């Protein structure tokens, strides 16, 4: 069976001639339907660039991304990108409800009454019932990222790409949002690609963790996370298996040269 989301030998370099700088080199990852894969790597390793290529926002220098057998060259309709910078990603001239309705307006599939009902449903799902008429800049950071999540869900995507989605919120909110996304992921059977530099987050959330090396980034390792689901905010993190997986990944991050195995 071919992978649902196939990232095939993606290379990205900037500049030309002797000044050429490579960000990514031959990155290949196969992601199955409804799988949650985390991309882990040191900061500045080109994780965001990688995710933007997967999203079709920037073209790769070589290699390709295939979603359900079709090559991605522009942002596909059923793939949604959740940005780290929620303050810039939400539209300040729109209310919370209007932000969440934006993807449906673009798809022009539903009547206005239906759009409203569905938006309220997604807002309730992320715990923002009653906030629909406020503006994003009237909400706290964690609530804003919840709005962004609700908006992503409103697009009814099959693939959710998350670019360090919780790194700009406080530690407690981060734990809440991680569990929230896991809940939604399980309920909607989404395929999720999560970029993060947080080892705990990767292990807690993912089915598999792909480790990128420093620039030019190659896939250094892929680790199966065989923790049982549903995962518990505290219980899972305190389990021996969690700690040993976390230890292994941290070790690879901190002592990269000993572990590089090339592409997987």
């Amino acid at each position, binding site marked *: 069976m071919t992978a649902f989301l196939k990232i095939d030998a993606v290379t990205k370099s900037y500049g030309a001639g002797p000044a050429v700088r490579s960000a990514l080199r031959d990155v290949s990852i196969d992601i199955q339907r409804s799988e949650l894969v985390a991309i882990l790597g040191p900061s500045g390793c080109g994780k965001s660039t990688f995710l933007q290529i997967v999203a079709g*926002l920037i073209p790769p220098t070589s290699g390709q991304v295939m979603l359900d057998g079709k090559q991605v060259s522009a942002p596909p309709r059923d793939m949604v*990108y959740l940005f780290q910078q929620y303050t*810039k990603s939400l*539209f300040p001239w729109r209310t919370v409800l209007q932000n969440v309705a934006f993807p449906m307006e673009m798809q022009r599939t539903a009547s206005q009454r239906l759009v409203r009902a569905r938006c309220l449903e997604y807002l309730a799902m992320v715990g923002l019932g009653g906030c629909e008429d406020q503006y994003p800049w009237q909400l706290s950071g964690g609530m804003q990222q919840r709005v962004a999540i609700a908006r992503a869900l409103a697009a009814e995507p099959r693939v959710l790409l998350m670019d360090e989605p919780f790194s700009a919120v406080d530690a407690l909110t981060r734990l809440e949002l991680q569990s929230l996304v896991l809940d939604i992921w399980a309920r909607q059977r989404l395929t999720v690609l999560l970029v993060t530099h947080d080892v705990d987050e990767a292990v807690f959330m993912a089915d598999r963790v792909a480790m990128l090396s420093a620039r030019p980034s190659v896939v250094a390792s892929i680790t199966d996370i065989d923790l049982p689901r549903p995962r518990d905010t505290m219980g899972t993190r305190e389990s021996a298996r969690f700690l040993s997986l976390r230890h292994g990944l941290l070790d690879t991050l901190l002592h990269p040269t000993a572990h590089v195995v090339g592409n997987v």
Partner: protein
Amino acid sequence: MYRAATRLLPGLASFVVVLVIWELAGRYRYVNPVLLPPPSVIGSTLWEIVRSGALLEPLGQTFLLLFVGYALACLFGIALGLVMGRSEVIYGLLEPLIELLRPIPKAALVPPLFLFLGFGATMKITIVALAAFFPILIATIQGVRGVDRVAIDTARTFGCTGLALNLRIILPASLPMIATGMRVGLGLGLILVVLAEMLAGDGGVGYLILDMQRSFAVRQMYAWIVILAAAGLAINAIFVFVEARAIPWRAK
């Protein structure tokens, strides 16, 4: 209420002090009251103008010309600014031309415009539009170019591209900058409409002020200047009011 009062009070006090000094200077002949009548005299003349209804026609004429010219400037300035801000090719094509025309003081263009458009409304609307156009254009270009990459990419991932992207994302996102340009443009438009009226001699508040001075109706001249100042203040207040409601996220 109390806070608003304490904020406004010092400014109001200095205003009153200036009025009192002006009044006394006229009464005790420190300045020639024929050339600069005291505020009480100007005030009563002003009241006569307001009460007789003579206010409406010239004021209406001046501000109608201002608004038509200003609306045209907004329309063309924002539209061209959007196109130039979004297209490198068109920007490269037009930018040198605009940089050449922009620094010309628009007042200098009134005499040549007389030649082509005469002394009527068309000329005045044109000069107002020209004066207000450039600041609006430049601000729009800057606003469009400054729209955050993340906002654009967000829209793109939801399938919002092309014209929809420009109208639904780029335009509202640049609105704070555009409003700044529109405010500068409104001020310039008011200056130019008054100047054009003075030079054209075809009615309006600008013409009246000059005409009163020539016929030595000094009190009336000052009264009309006060009317103009008050009207300018009023449209600025309206602008600020509308701006705060149209761009509530600006303060954030």
